[in-house]
């Protein structure tokens, strides 16, 4: 009962946040509503007994990635006149919704054909740190290492890209 209510609250918040991201003109406003979406998603993860992912979502996504994005938005010192004039924004959004509708319908159909299952909080430390860690370092070791190399690459790339070069006018 409580779980269903919580689910609906979180779901509505997530959709509203996503809608706000798409609709707002200034990216700061969009970023803020996106943070709302991320936090409600974290709640949804908790409802699915994914304890570690819930924590990581809040720490990494909402905490690190979003703060990076917000920092860059503020760094660039965007004024209203810098933003693109999107007069036909509404038309485009409605048109895109129409275009995306079939994809959505297909995915709905696919989901509906799956067997149903009740949501109960799982015991046995399902989704806990120790369990995920064991899996990560035993079955998923190689991808783990490769992802770490990926992070290294992006670190170097970011430094190279945004480092001191002559400004190209």
């Amino acid at each position, binding site marked *: 009962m409580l779980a269903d209510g919580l689910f609906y609250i979180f779901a509505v918040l997530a959709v509203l946040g996503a809608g706000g991201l798409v609709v707002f003109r200034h990216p700061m406003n969009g970023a803020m509503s996106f943070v709302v979406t991320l936090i409600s998603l974290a709640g949804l993860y908790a409802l699915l007994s994914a304890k570690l992912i819930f924590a990581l979502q809040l720490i990494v996504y909402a905490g690190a*990635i979003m703060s990076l994005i917000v920092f860059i938005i503020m760094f660039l010192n965007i004024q209203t006149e810098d933003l693109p004039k999107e007069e036909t924004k509404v038309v485009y959004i409605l048109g895109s919704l129409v275009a995306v509708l079939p994809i959505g319908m297909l995915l709905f159909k696919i989901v509906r054909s799956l067997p149903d299952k*009740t949501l109960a909080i799982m015991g046995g430390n399902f989704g806990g740190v120790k369990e995920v860690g064991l899996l990560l370092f035993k079955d998923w070791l190689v991808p783990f290492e490769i992802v770490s190399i990926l992070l290294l690459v992006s670190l170097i790339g970011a430094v190279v890209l945004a480092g001191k070069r002559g400004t190209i006018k």
Partner: protein
Amino acid sequence: MIHNFLFLSVILFCLGIVGVIARRNVFTVFMSIELMLNAANLAFVAFSRIHESMDGHVLAMMVMAVAAAEAALALAVVILLHKHKGKLDTNVFSLLKG
């Protein structure tokens, strides 16, 4: 019951696509991509709950790591583009024309 999570994931994903193709602001486009990634994460976790295996959680972690790396690089590119043209409009960069 679990279907609702998946429906929500689909809705968020489609909203993300709409954001990518309907808006011209680079930040909005980028954050819509992040939205799509999150929708996929939700689907992963939901499926791992269905199958009662934690592989989905591991994959969700990988996705988050990739999203972080991509965020860093994309923002670096955005800064460079802003330095180049002074505008944040994707329509300004049309050298691929023709």
